[in-house]
């Protein structure tokens, strides 16, 4: 006990004010470097939530919750010796007594780190208040914007810089008509030149966002059509329901001013190269610090300062802070924007190469030095795939190729991209955490052969994530260079790729997982990677009912219970509605079932109806009623054929040239139940107007006067890709033959969970090769592929009908095998006339039933 007190007395107190991204990084670095051996660490934050990721703030509106934006597990701040004071603003710093003062009293410090960040600058404009004076900085700000947006149609962002455009995106994702008002004559005036700004404006306007340049807001008054009216200097005006100001940031230096630290010309605590203020016990890092008269509003330089201070406080050799590269790469409103180094070509003697594509509103500018040998900077709008290479050229002073312009020309010209092998050891791969190629190499040399492990060891790619592609390339290149074969094994149980396993199953006629594991794998159990993958291969090859005893343990829960598990553990049920065609009686039948079981219903994008909120034990009853009414399973739970969307075609539409519904029914009937590496979506349009959106599907069919055009390998989703025209004017039989071959070739050669689009992009020889295989039968596989498909088609059986016939299979559909009760923890609330899962914040709404004695 006494010895403890003795150590405590030797301990110094270190206080960090601010728990934003930079303050948090400093704490992380301090703990990692052993600071807790010398210091008790107190962290004060005026925000109520611990540090979160401001770079990805806009995802909060896209459904990410606050907790998932948090930068670390709560456990970091529970480390003994660390005290986090959330929601406790520091009111005053007493430098003489070395004390910070909060509403709860004073805490004495030995060393103090200011990481108070910045605040949004709102110009003094008459009438700006409440919902006409919103800002975009903290989660609380976002909540305020969301609340204001609830009754709004239109929203305006003042400020066309990086954050302003982020804010505009946020307004758009809240369903508002968004406008951006910028004082300067172009967007992103700091990062872009004139032409770049124009290209960005054109792209953003195409997305439906209004852009108003050279506008100075003078006052805000009541509007006529909308709530407010913004009056500009030139007598123009714009009406809107809410206004978000994003007109730049100011260093949050109020505490520093109060305790009379030296303040920079544009605000901010003046720091030297060691991040020390004019007080030898007070450091400042991040956006609240002013180095050489400049503020740094990006996360990477802030992290650099945090690392430097942490090292110094732990008596390690610290790299001085001598300015930062402000190069940045972003996706704003879905538009790629990149700015590197001297983007404006301000260096004396600098010369530029420019590439303009007005059709796609793309713009690229490469700035080189007077000698023409080195990159000074670049501007990219529309396509950031050039960014990594250009940044490496600039950061590492790599000599330019003979034709520098080739670096920004469209890549089909065969531009010499800088391979990972050409990078010097000193090249920075991850600028957030300052990870060089050299440190990646030494991690590999000390035995790291796994990308995930590399990331956690070096921290590379755990900041903004922008270096993910480059990191993977460097990693794989270095492994191969060391003679390590890059491990493409499915998992620890199979040293084969999915394609190789497919061939083994097919050639050796393997029909169970156990057989495959015994012959070609390791261990007796498998895992959640190989079991579903093999289950899918077996189904693609032999199409046995997935509820067969040997197959059940292979499936993910959705396939096991033939329904889609939702976040609260209940399932959604999707009966097949082929081609989106449904009779009134069947619609009524679905309605009757939905009503009886109180299911939330929603129309899906694939022209069918999803019924949500069923508990496990209800599924068999629901399905026997649906099957009784003539439905069969929709396979919405499987990596398999989902839907064939269609328009009404020549039957009803005055423009239709073929019967698209009939073709959709034929295709859906043929391929239903087909299991594949990933889900498959189809569509058939009855004319070139393409109302069924076939060009966004894995298989798209569009009617022509003479027959059908076939498109393949498109998809929507996270990375949309247009399908490519594969063959034209096909008759029915040829169309189906080509689709048979295409799908089976995909199933045979794709990687696990690889959609047709990614598979097609990875095919060497591209579309021409694929046409050769399918149309010209260059591999002599045509008949084999067709007969394999025919086997799957012949063996089709509705999995639910099969399961309902077998009491053994039904045994599994019990919430509790020893009790009839439903899961008592599942609760719903009513919303818009239906029920939905209760949210964690609403749990107080659950009625408490008091026992009456």
């Amino acid at each position, binding site marked *: 006990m006494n010895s403890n007190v003795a150590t405590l007395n030797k301990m110094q107190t270190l206080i960090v004010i601010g728990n934003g991204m930079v303050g948090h990084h400093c704490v992380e670095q301090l703990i990692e470097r052993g600071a807790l051996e010398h210091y008790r660490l107190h962290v004060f934050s005026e925000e109520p939530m611990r540090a979160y990721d401001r770079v990805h703030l806009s995802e909060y509106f896209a459904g990410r919750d606050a907790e998932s934006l948090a930068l670390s597990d709560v*456990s970091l701040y529970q480390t003994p010796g660390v005290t986090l004071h959330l929601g406790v603003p520091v009111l005053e710093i007493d430098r003489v007594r070395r004390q910070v003062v909060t509403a709860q009293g004073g805490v004495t410090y030995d060393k103090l780190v200011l990481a108070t960040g910045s605040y949004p600058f709102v110009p003094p404009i008459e009438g700006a208040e409440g919902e006409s004076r919103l800002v975009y900085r903290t989660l609380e700000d976002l909540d305020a914007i969301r609340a204001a947006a609830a009754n709004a149609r239109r929203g305006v962002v003042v400020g066309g810089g990086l954050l302003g455009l982020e804010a505009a995106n946020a307004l758009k994702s809240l369903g508002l008509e968004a406008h951006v008002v910028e004082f300067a004559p172009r967007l992103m005036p700091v990062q872009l030149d004139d032409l770049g700004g124009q290209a960005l404006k054109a792209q953003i306007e195409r997305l439906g966002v209004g852009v108003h340049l050279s506008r100075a807001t003078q006052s805000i008054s009541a509007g006529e059509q909308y709530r407010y009216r913004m009056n500009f200097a030139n007598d123009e005006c714009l009406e809107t329901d809410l206004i978000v100001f994003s007109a730049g940031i100011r260093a949050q230096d109020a505490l520093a001013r109060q305790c009379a630290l030296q303040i920079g010309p544009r605000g901010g605590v003046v720091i030297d190269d060691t991040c020390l203020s004019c007080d030898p016990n007070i450091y400042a890092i991040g956006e609240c610090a002013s180095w050489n008269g400049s503020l740094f509003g990006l996360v990477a330089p802030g992290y650099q300062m945090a690392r430097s201070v942490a090292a110094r406080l732990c008596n390690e050799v610290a790299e001085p802070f001598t300015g930062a590269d402000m190069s940045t790469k972003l996706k704003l409103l879905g538009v790629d924007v990149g700015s590197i180094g001297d983007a404006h070509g301000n260096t004396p003697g600098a010369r530029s190469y420019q590439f303009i594509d007005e059709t796609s509103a793309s713009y690229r500018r490469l700035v080189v030095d007077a000698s023409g040998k080195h990159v000074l900077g670049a501007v990219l709008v529309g396509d950031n795939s050039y960014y990594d290479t250009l940044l490496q050229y600039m950061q590492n002073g790599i000599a330019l190729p003979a034709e520098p312009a080739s670096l920004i020309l469209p890549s089909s010209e065969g531009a010499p991209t800088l391979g990972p092998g050409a990078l010097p050891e000193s090249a920075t791969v991850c600028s957030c955490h300052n990870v060089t190629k050299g440190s990646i190499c030494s991690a590999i040399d000390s035995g790291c052969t796994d990308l995930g492990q590399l990331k956690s060891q070096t921290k590379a790619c755990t900041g903004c994530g922008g270096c993910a592609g480059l990191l993977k390339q460097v990693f794989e290149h270095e492994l191969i260079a060391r003679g390590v074969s890059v491990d493409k094994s499915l998992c620890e149980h199979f040293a084969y790729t999915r394609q190789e396993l497919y061939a083994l199953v097919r050639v050796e006629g393997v029909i169970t997982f156990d057989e495959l594991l015994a012959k070609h794998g390791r261990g*007796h159990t*498998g895992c*959640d990677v190989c079991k579903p993958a093999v289950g899918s291969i077996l189904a693609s090859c032999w199409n046995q009912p997935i509820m067969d005893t040997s197959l059940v343990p292979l*499936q993910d829960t959705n396939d096991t219970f033939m329904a889609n598990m939702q976040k609260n*553990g209940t399932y959604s049920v999707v009966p097949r509605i082929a081609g989106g065609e449904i009779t009134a009686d069947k619609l009524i039948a679905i309605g009757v079932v939905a009503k009886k079981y109180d299911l939330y219903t929603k129309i899906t994008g694939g022209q069918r109806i999803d019924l949500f909120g069923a508990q496990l034990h209800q599924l068999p009853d629901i399905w026997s009623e649906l099957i009784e009414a003539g439905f069969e399973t929709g396979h919405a739970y499987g990596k398999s054929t989902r839907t064939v969307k269609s328009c009404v075609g020549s039957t009803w539409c005055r423009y239709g040239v073929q019967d698209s519904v009939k073709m959709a029914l034929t295709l859906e009937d043929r391929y239903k139940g087909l299991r594949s590496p990933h889900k498959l979506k189809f569509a058939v349009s009855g004319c070139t107007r393409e109302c069924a959106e076939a060009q966004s599907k894995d298989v798209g069919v569009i009617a022509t006067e003479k027959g059908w055009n076939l498109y393949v390998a498109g998809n929507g989703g996270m990375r949309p890709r247009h399908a490519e025209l594969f063959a034209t004017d096909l008759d029915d039989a040829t169309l189906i033959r080509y689709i048979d071959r295409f799908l089976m070739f995909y199933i045979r050669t794709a990687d696990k969970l690889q959609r047709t689009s990614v598979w097609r992009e990875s095919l060497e020889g591209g579309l021409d090769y694929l046409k050769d295989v399918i149309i010209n039968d260059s591999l002599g596989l045509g008949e084999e592929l067709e007969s394999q498909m025919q086997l799957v088609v012949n063996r089709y059986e509705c999995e639910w009908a099969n399961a309902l016939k077998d009491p053994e299979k039904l045994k599994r559909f019990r919430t509790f095998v*020893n009790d009839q009760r439903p899961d008592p923890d599942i609760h719903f609330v009513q919303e818009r006339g239906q029920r939905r899962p209760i949210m964690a914040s609403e749990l107080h709404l659950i009625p408490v039933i008091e026992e009456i004695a």
Partner: protein
Amino acid sequence: MSQSDTQRAYSSSSLVNPDAWQAVCSQEDLVSNSGVVVWLDGAQVALFYLPAAEGKTLYAVDNHDPQSGANVIGRGLIGSIKGDLVIASPLYKQHFRLEDGSCLEYPQQRLRVWPVRLNAGLVEVAVA
């Protein structure tokens, strides 16, 4: 070290008070190489049955998934990772060791485990 030893000792049935065993369902209710769930005085216990395994063939862990807050563990997929038998949560796919309920990815998540045995065609769980 000592903590995991305690866990192991706790879940090994030989050290259980003989009066603590409680029958929860019959052996026929189990599904081979997969999970089912039983109701046990307010707790939800997921039972995983691996009839062909060399060592233990039956495991009992909490059905409650700490990450999602939903009662879904019994509907996860059994696997082995680096020698440990694990269950993957069906929602966010994190893995828990069947032996002691510890989580491979998130040390702060842990499932409660119960001693469990087959006794004359019945499944018995020991309640502390």
